[in-house]
């Protein structure tokens, strides 16, 4: 069996490379069943959805202690708001792991890379472990590295769209050029798409909508987790590249090794 190096963020090791978002579930039981079935060790929760005053129905009560909580800044429209939400999360006892989401477009929900870089820089200096959600742009990813990000989280396609890896070629570039773990986030609608992202070398994958809105969320959460593991194993096994047509094995250089019968 191939030996995999652990998936590590800010010194913390994770055995499972599947991350789960906690929005859109029809009830909290589905959520906790999905966490358990997938074996995820890292879940993201929007601070705006955490009912800090109530204990009953408080989403945090459904997240097991061994699972790392990654609070996200959903609702932030600029760097300043993301920073204020992160501070609020830390004060509320949600820890210092923060997923930056800065979105200033309510129609497409695309992240604002410039503001995300600014927020990352501020929060990383304040000792937050910062996981920025971004549009897969190489220059922005490099700036995020400089700003102190712990990972880079490029989107596969529009949030909630289930369209899969529309940005595949650009994520590949990030995987090749950025030394931080690349965690594919957003738009991943099926386990096969998750496996595809992992096969090309993503370090981990986050899904939410597909699982939360499935007929059987726990079943699909497990399927995602298995697909992520399968994709990872395929990557480690050095998956052969796809070919568009059948090819002779030595069409171009075969002549070098043929016997010369003319003599």
């Amino acid at each position, binding site marked *: 069996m191939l030996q995999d190096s652990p998936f590590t963020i800010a010194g913390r090791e994770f055995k499972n490379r599947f991350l789960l978002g906690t929005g859109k579930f*029809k009830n909290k039981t589905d959520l906790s069943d999905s966490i358990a079935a997938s074996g995820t060790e890292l879940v993201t929760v929007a601070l*705006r959805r955490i009912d800090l005053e*109530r204990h009953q129905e408080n989403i945090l009560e459904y997240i097991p202690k061994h699972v790392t909580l990654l609070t996200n800044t959903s609702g932030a429209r*600029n760097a300043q708001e993301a920073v204020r939400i992160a501070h609020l999360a830390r004060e509320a006892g949600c820890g210092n792991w923060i997923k930056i989401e800065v979105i200033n477009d309510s*129609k497409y929900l695309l992240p604002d890379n410039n503001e995300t870089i600014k927020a990352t820089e501020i929060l990383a200096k304040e000792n937050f472990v910062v996981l920025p959600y971004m549009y897969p742009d190489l220059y922005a990813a490099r700036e995020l590295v400089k700003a102190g990000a712990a990972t880079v989280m490029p989107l596969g396609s529009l949030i909630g769209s289930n369209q899969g890896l529309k940005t595949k070629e650009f994520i590949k570039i990030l995987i090749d050029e950025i030394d931080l773990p690349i965690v594919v986030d957003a738009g991943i609608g099926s386990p096969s798409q998750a496996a595809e992202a992992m096969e090309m070398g993503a370090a981990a994958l986050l899904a939410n909508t597909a699982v939360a809105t499935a007929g059987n969320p726990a079943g699909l959460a497990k399927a995602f987790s298995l697909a992520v593991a399968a994709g990872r194993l395929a990557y480690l096994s050095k998956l052969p590249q796809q070919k568009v047509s059948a090819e002779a094995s030595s069409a171009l250089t075969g002549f070098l090794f043929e016997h010369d019968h003319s003599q």
Partner: protein
Amino acid sequence: MITLSEIKNILTNENSRETEQLAKDAQRLSEQYFGRTISLYAPLYLSNYCSSHCTYCGFHSHNRIKRIKLTDEQMQTEMAFVAKRGIQNILLLTGESYKATPLSYLKSAVEIAKNYFPSISLEVHPMDTDEYRELFLSGVDGITIYQETYNRERYAQVHISGKKSDYDYRRETPKRIARSGIRQISLGILLGLSDVAEDIYEFYNHLRWMEKYFPGIEYSVSFPRLRTIKGMGFVPCDVTDVTFIKIICLTRILFPRVGINLSTREGSRLRDGVLGLGITRMSAASKTSVGGYTLLAPEDQEPQFDIQDERSVEEIVQLLKTKNFDPVFTDWRRIENKVTDAIIKK
């Protein structure tokens, strides 16, 4: 964008299979973009003073009703009562009186509300950008403003006097709100005032324009149906349940990420039936009169409109759970609102 004749076709089409298909498409998109969640909120009326004469409204300036404006202490009592029910999103409303409920009054109401609710929205008289900005900085997250009708002629007929009779000032209000920094804007029309298809068409164009030029705003929409009010001779155009549901579905299909609010002016049967077809926010156990929660006996209340769904918050929560929806009380945590360069430059 959809054409007027397409909207007319959809609204007048009596083919029940096509209506069912519309509902299926709307349901699929709602689930995809919002999951099976419904946010809950409650309205709280602060004042029924009004300086505009709108012929369809129970609060209008010529209507001889008892005028009330809550004092700070009364607001606290009302807000504490609503907050105790678990409501965290509050919509504070007033009649449209610049004199009785000026900016200073609204700001002090917001200061009090901050002690009880993480998310505060207002439905009050339209203002200028600077005034909206003051409200934003004082802690307001959302503003609700209805054009009522986009038909100028009809607008003039039903808004006889007062500042509300200025069509263009009202039409430009969402733009002024967006420039102030406010994060949520709720828009809508009053169904039954004018031709529904024409109003919906103009409304969609207005919303699309706002989305395009002010993309950072979180938009939600409401389609209140005009009700006959006791003692008033106004006869609204009939908007059937089928038409109403088609409008909800069509809105969801054309604006998949926009929130759709549903108030208790709709009856429980319709409210239960329309769940999942596009609605994302519902009010619960509402009172639509000033002091309606704790201060006045029901016989002394002067509601702006009559409530059709009188179920308690617990009953609504149970209903949502039975129908496989997660009732959401918390969808915003207060952060100190600040004006950034990006907001000023808009």
